[in-house]
């Protein structure tokens, strides 16, 4: 059976399913209900995870619009905006009833945007289709110019008691329950982010029992990777993965460096690297196409790394520690010797390292040459001599 994430399973299907911000919801419904060509676009401002995207999606659906969703990276420059929005704005009647939703507009800033904001503002001034923008913050100068041509609707954080009401309703539907202390803790840790609250609650009730003093929600990356491989069941491993809310790139890298530097059997290593490669490919696809909805499959792929009793432990570096140690410390000492000797031989350091250094080592090995090195450097040179062929 596929375990859907609660944040997806209980994604509101109509406006009454959403909690809080009733006035804001009323404003956007009024706006969309009375919308006509030339009406000012709407700017939804509020913290992440309180339902800006959901609100736009539901409104579009209920008024029969086809929502075209974009985010800041799509509207980075003038040409890109015209490529994407040109056909929609110019042929609105041919395309049915399009409605444009631009997420994270506050993310467009700096010189890298090459006229993105200006082009967007020109479009916002004379809209031919309903346009909804969403931002976490509206205080920057760029946002001020966007605000001038839009109608701002503030979405406020949800009061924690309403979050509790919502969470308890979902737990009831799932036939699960949490202690009052855990519920309060979850709500406060989510800081008003409903999505994060539901994911954490799901992780808690799917079998993984954290100690109350330090729940997995607060685990850092090292603890999470180690606990993942020590998990008692796939469900527990999945719960740990869900709770590890870091950048997907960092997540893949952490698993890669941990797996590659652990003492695994050849077959296990091959299988795990295939899984990581699959996760990496899906992340690459997300970045290329900006289809962030695919992100939910990343954890489902990575959970394949779990196998009870696998001796994988977290490592930040993608080489075993003894090799890193040699590269770092021995490498520094060898570089020092090469630097001194290359000056004496009147050649570059790179030439000395490539062509001269092996002969120096041979001479030292055959006791023809004594450089008078101190004990620690001598030990390093002995190690180099040992690997000479």
């Amino acid at each position, binding site marked *: 059976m596929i375990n859907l994430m609660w944040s997806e399973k209980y994604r509101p299907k109509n406006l009454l399913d959403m909690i809080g911000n*009733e006035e*804001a919801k009323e404003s956007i419904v009024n706006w969309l209900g009375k919308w006509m060509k030339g009406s000012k676009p709407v700017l939804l401002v509020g913290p992440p995870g309180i339902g800006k995207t959901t609100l736009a999606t539901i409104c579009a659906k209920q*008024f029969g619009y086809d929502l075209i969703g974009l985010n800041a990276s799509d509207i980075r420059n003038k040409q890109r905006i015209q490529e994407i929005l040109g056909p929609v704005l110019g042929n609105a009647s041919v395309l049915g009833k399009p409605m444009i939703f631009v997420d994270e507009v506050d993310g467009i800033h700096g010189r890298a945007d090459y006229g993105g904001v200006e082009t967007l503002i020109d479009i916002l001034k004379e809209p031919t289709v309903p346009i909804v923008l969403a931002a976490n913050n509206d205080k920057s100068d760029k946002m001020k110019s966007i605000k001038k041509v839009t109608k701002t609707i503030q979405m406020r*954080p949800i009061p*924690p008691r309403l979050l509790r009401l919502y969470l*308890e309703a979902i737990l009831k539907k799932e036939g699960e329950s949490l202690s009052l202390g855990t519920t309060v803790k979850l709500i406060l840790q989510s800081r008003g982010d409903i999505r994060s609250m539901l994911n954490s609650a799901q992780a808690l009730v799917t079998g993984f029992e954290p100690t109350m003093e330090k729940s997995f929600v607060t685990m850092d990356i090292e603890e999470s990777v180690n606990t993942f491989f020590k998990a008692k069941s796939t469900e527990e491993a999945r719960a740990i993965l869900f709770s590890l809310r870091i950048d997907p790139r960092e997540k893949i890298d952490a698993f890669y460096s941990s797996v590659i530097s652990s003492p695994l059997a050849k077959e296990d290593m091959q299988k795990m690297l295939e899984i990581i490669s699959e996760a990496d490919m899906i992340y690459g696809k997300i970045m290329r196409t900006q289809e962030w909805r695919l992100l939910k499959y990343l954890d489902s792929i990575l959970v394949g790394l779990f196998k009870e009793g696998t001796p994988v432990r977290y490592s930040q570096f993608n080489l075993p520690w003894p090799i890193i140690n040699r590269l770092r410390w021995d490498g520094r000492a060898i570089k020092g010797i090469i630097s001194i000797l290359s000056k004496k031989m009147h050649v570059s350091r790179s030439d000395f390292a490539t062509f001269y250094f092996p002969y120096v080592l041979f001479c030292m090995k055959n006791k023809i040459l004594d450089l008078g090195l101190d004990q620690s450097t001598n030990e390093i040179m002995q190690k180099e001599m040992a690997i000479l062929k």
Partner: protein
Amino acid sequence: MKFPGTCIVCKKKIEINEIGLWAKGIGVKHQACADEVELKCLVCGGPAGCPQCEFSADCDLTKVSQLCICKNCNESKDAFNFYQKAVAKKFPILNLKI
């Protein structure tokens, strides 16, 4: 007050010579209204009982969405259903059937 105004909390008139707290761009409110910031219960319409709320220390009353639920309504058997019905009644426009 030098000029009359309308309190942004209770929406009642503040007359000349009464004490009111004014801030540019925000408006004016009675001194008593400024001291008692409390959310409203969406279900019963009464005060949400913020001073006694289990989240009182962590809920910024000036920043959060202003409609909440009081302890009594929250403890009723089907609280979420009551909440949804109250939203549909007070904000009929949100009960879209298109």
